[in-house]
């Protein structure tokens, strides 16, 4: 591929919050001692009176966010995905999800591209956890532009939203001037007729790369960007599956309970077709550079390409 600009989606979170703060005085940002890493520091610098560091106490942070939301504030509670969805799961479920409060959870450093910190910090379970909570919207943007747009869309939506961002820089595939984000709307980024690749997060740009490579071999792959895991765009997925008859899912997340599972639910109930789920195969990650890890676990373009070829040759 030609030279593309690479920016981490967490940068889109921070910049999106700062832009939002300027136009919406109800936005309050909370963090748990990770403001530099989650990029909420950008908001803190611009609006210090609406930024609160809760210290290393994620459960309490979720509860404070809930309390703020009951009074009309729009809190963004920010920490790593591991602690937002993992450690604070029950607070998110009971204090935010059950009363359906207008809290936004900004979860950065999701997936294995956390890199060197290793398995303890590489959350591959958050999509699964969050999508089981009734009424929770789950967003997983693919690039910086989409991340920023997702932050604004989340603020406009009334209800709890989980936003998933990554640590590592990924290609910017959307044009900021023209990009429009609609919660629940899958985006067909490339049309094809032989196989559908349904991807989310950082796997979207990798999937586009794979589709390009397949095209050179005469294989026509359709690529769908699912930036909203819940509510899932069933129509777009079903229409594509009907056309291609074969579906690959790609996510930087466990193959259990994430995008792949959500897509399988829809296909099984409506139009069963063969599916190949690409993700973390029920294993923990490990320390290493983000690039080395995605290569080892088959979550880079080469890995996805190999899996798609195996699947098509079955």
């Amino acid at each position, binding site marked *: 591929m030609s030279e593309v600009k690479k920016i981490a989606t967490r940068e889109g979170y921070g910049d999106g919050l700062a832009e939002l703060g300027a136009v919406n005085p109800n936005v309050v940002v909370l963090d748990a001692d990770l403001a530099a890493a989650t990029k909420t520091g950008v908001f803190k610098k611009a609006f210090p009176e609406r930024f609160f560091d809760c210290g290393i106490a994620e*459960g309490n942070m979720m*509860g*404070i*966010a809930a*309390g703020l939301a*009951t*009074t009309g504030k729009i809190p963004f509670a920010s920490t790593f995905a591991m602690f937002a969805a993992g450690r604070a799961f029950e607070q998110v479920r*009971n204090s935010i999800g*059950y009363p359906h409060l207008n809290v936004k959870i900004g979860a950065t450093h999701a997936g294995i591209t956390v890199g060197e910190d290793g398995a303890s910090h590489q959350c591959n379970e958050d999509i699964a956890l969050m999508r089981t909570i009734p009424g929770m919207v789950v967003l997983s943007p693919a690039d910086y532009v989409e991340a920023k747009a997702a932050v604004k869309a989340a603020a406009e939506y009334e209800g709890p939203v989980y936003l998933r961002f990554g640590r590592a820089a990924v290609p910017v595939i959307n044009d900021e001037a023209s990009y429009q984000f609609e919660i629940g709307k899958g985006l067909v980024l490339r049309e094809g007729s032989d196989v559908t690749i349904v991807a989310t997060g950082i796997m979207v740009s990798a999937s586009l790369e794979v589709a390009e490579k397949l095209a050179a071999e005469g294989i026509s792959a359709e690529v769908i960007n699912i930036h909203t895991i819940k509510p899932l765009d069933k129509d777009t997925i079903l229409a594509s599956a009907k056309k291609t008859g074969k579906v690959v899912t790609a996510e930087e997340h466990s193959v259990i309970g994430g995008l792949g599972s959500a897509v399988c639910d829809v296909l099984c109930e409506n139009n069963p077709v063969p599916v190949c789920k690409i993700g973390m195969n029920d294993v923990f990650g490990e320390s290493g550079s983000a690039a080395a890890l995605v290569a080892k676990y088959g979550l880079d373009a080469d890995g996805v390409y190999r899996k798609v070829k195996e699947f098509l040759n079955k």
Partner: protein
Amino acid sequence: MDNLELKITANEVRKGIVTAVHSAKAGHPGGSLSAADIFTYLYFEEMNVNPEDPKNPDRDRFVLSKGHTAPGLYATLAHRGYFPVEDLTTLRKLGSYLQGHPCMQHVPGVDMSSGSLGQGISAAVGMALSAKISGKDYRTYTLLGDGEIQEGQVWEASMFAGFHKLDNLVVIVDNNGLQIDGKIDEVCSPYPIDKKFEAFNFHVINVDAHDFDALRAAFAEARQTKGMPVAIIAHSVKGKGVSFMENNAGWHGKAPNDEEYAVAMADLERIGEQLCQK
């Protein structure tokens, strides 16, 4: 309200608790009864609330962090006029808005859903923080169980409240000394409770939870406290008012059968008659 009126009202609240739990054949009478005087004082004397306008943005807030004592809150709200007293007998039944634990979406007057212990105090801190951000002068009250403070989240929330000097927040601990598995100081002692809150930069007031003069003085002192949140450690009797439930951990989460219900109501009727003779 004067003390006699408060006592009469609290006695009616206790009847509501026992009646609701008996009707539900499940629920938590012990901790509801120990907190009945606190509930009554808050809703009939202390808090700026209006049942005609339960969502008023400037109202005082209350979070029942010990959410299992919903019968106590519901009975108080019903007697305060938020919903019909007769509805208390629908507690915990299919289709009732009076869920086993408070649900803010369905019960008028409930400011926060709660029930999973340790979480309500954090929401109360968020409400108090919001008032500080917006320059509003409403106050936030939250009631915790003494067993509940074994939850670490209580201290996360307390650290934040003390650090941010949330003097518009009052944390009340219903110190009845009993939890499901027995005495709190035999299960996993949280004592000294007052010293712990002091260490988190709270102004701490110890009070007899069943003495309205003492409660009046404590809440007045809380209002006068500036620059730090207040913790009121309310020393109470679990099951207060019902002879066979008093100081008995077995009545933490058990409903009286028909015979027991009759005895309980007779106890409360007798107390009510004595009050009316005063």
